């Protein structure tokens, strides 16, 4: 995959140690991601260099017990690509983040590998579904959940259980790439729910471009 320019990110987290860790992980990735700004609240993503960063890595619990859903909404409405990186939250909060247009949701138990992958795919307007998010979608019992095929549900469950796409592919007798396509298709289905957001529109447009879904599927 060719990236014309280097990827940039802004890290928002109220714990300095977490910010430092994330900066280090991202700088060690291939290709490395440059953190152009960091801060303990969401201002860092709106002013200075942070306003131009490709991806916003947002901690949902900033100094308070209620998740910063308003901040997330304002960012996605402005077309910012947001990866939520949070303590383990309940499934409802996770799915709400997707509805608001976050491109990915990671729990802090999920390490560098998933975070790097999430940032890289988000920069390309694609979604990334880490295992915890797959679990939340597989256990989704809300009325508004999109209709998933049996195979898509199986992929979600196996990915949630194993954390290994090779394993999922082997178990279901498909290729790892097909596993990814299933996950992206599921995310497109979720992107079509709830309120409009530029990031979600971009996600769907990208899926059509990649041939994951046809225009007739919309």
């Amino acid at each position: 995959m060719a990236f014309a320019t280097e990827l940039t990110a802004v890290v928002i987290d109220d714990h300095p140690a977490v910010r430092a860790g994330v900066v280090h992980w991202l700088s060690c990735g291939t290709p490395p991601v440059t953190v152009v700004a960091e801060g303990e609240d969401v201002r860092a993503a709106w002013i200075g260099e942070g306003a131009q960063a490709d991806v916003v890595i947002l901690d949902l619990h900033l100094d308070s017990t209620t998740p910063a859903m308003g901040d997330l909404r304002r960012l996605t409405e402005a077309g910012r690509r947001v990866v939520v990186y949070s303590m383990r939250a309940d499934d409802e909060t996770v799915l709400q983040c997707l509805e608001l247009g976050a491109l990915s949701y990671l729990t802090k138990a999920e390490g560098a590998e998933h975070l790097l992958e999430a940032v890289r795919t988000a920069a390309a307007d694609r979604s990334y579904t880490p295992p915890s998010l797959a679990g939340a979608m597989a256990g989704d019992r809300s009325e508004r959940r999109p209709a998933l095929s049996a195979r898509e549900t199986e992929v979600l469950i196996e990915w949630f259980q194993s954390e290994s796409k090779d394993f999922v592919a082997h178990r279901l007798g498909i290729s790892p790439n097909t596993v990814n396509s299933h996950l992206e298709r599921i995310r497109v289905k979720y992107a079509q729910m709830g309120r409009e957001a530029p990031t979600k529109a971009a996600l769907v447009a990208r899926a059509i471009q990649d041939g994951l879904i046809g225009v007739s599927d919309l």
Partner: protein
Amino acid sequence: MNETADRVLGGCRIAVLLATAAIQVGLSLARLTDTPGRLAFAALAVVLVVAAWWVLRWKPVPWPVALAGAVVVLAASTVAVWTLPTDRLFGDENWASGLAGWHLLVLLMDRPALAMAALVLQMTLAFVRQFGAELTTRGEIGSVVIVGLSVLTFQAATLALIGVVNRRAGEAAEASAERDRQAHRKALAEEREADQRNRFAGQLGATLPLLAGLADRTLDPRDDEVRRRCALAATQLRRLFAENDDVPDPLLHEVSACVDLAERRGLTVTLAVSGEPAPVPTAVRRALTAPLMTALVAARSHARVSVLRADDEIRVAAITDGEPGVTENGSGAVDVEWHALGERSWMEAKWRSRPN
């Protein structure tokens, strides 16, 4: 009133009935002299026979019958006493005034207050007739009152005695019933305890033979297999202790208990949970966690445990770097699958809350 007391009262009733019949036939029959007396005697005999129909079957005389009978008895005794010529009122010919009270007792024994009132009324009617006759001397008046009152007192005492016996019988029966209830409760509690002990012993799984083996040195703690069995037994115990805890999410509580023990053994375990807590029967929780314990005990260093609760199914899965276990598909309600891929093995226990 309970059964025993009823039986005692029934016995008293029969005793008084037989005594009355004996007095009527043995003492009064020979003293009949005139026609009204014979009629009264016959009426009293009929009342006794009618009452015997219930009394001899250990039952009280029904209320309307008893009341009608009492009226007949009072009438008969009045007729017998009032038709006697004055000069015979104080002799053997006046058999009725002493006898009728017993009939009233037979009929009204179950209602002591009413029985007492009827006795007093009957005796009063007799007194009125006797005092209305030409009593002249204080000696005559005295002897009439003494005879009348002694009969009345004897009858009242009988009534009171029956009351006391009856009450005591009731209390005794109550005490014995309470003793029976306590014995029953004790037996139940013992049975429950034994049952729980058995169930617990059943749930102890491999623990008891393992402990026995270690104790008599047929098992060597240095042996890897023995250690594995110890780890499994410890996990089973830990899960069993968690089973009865009162927690909002019992399945997750038990899974966490299994994970906790694996971590103490030095394993790196990640636990992922998704979906809302759902009610799971105890037997199903056991079936879901049993293969998980097997998988965790087999793991060498890493395990990922996941609990997924979707619409109508619950899946407990474990991916470890150990050998896959044997499918223990015992309970039927839970499907257990094992799968190996390279160095890793995958286990999934699945339960559908609404079977197809």
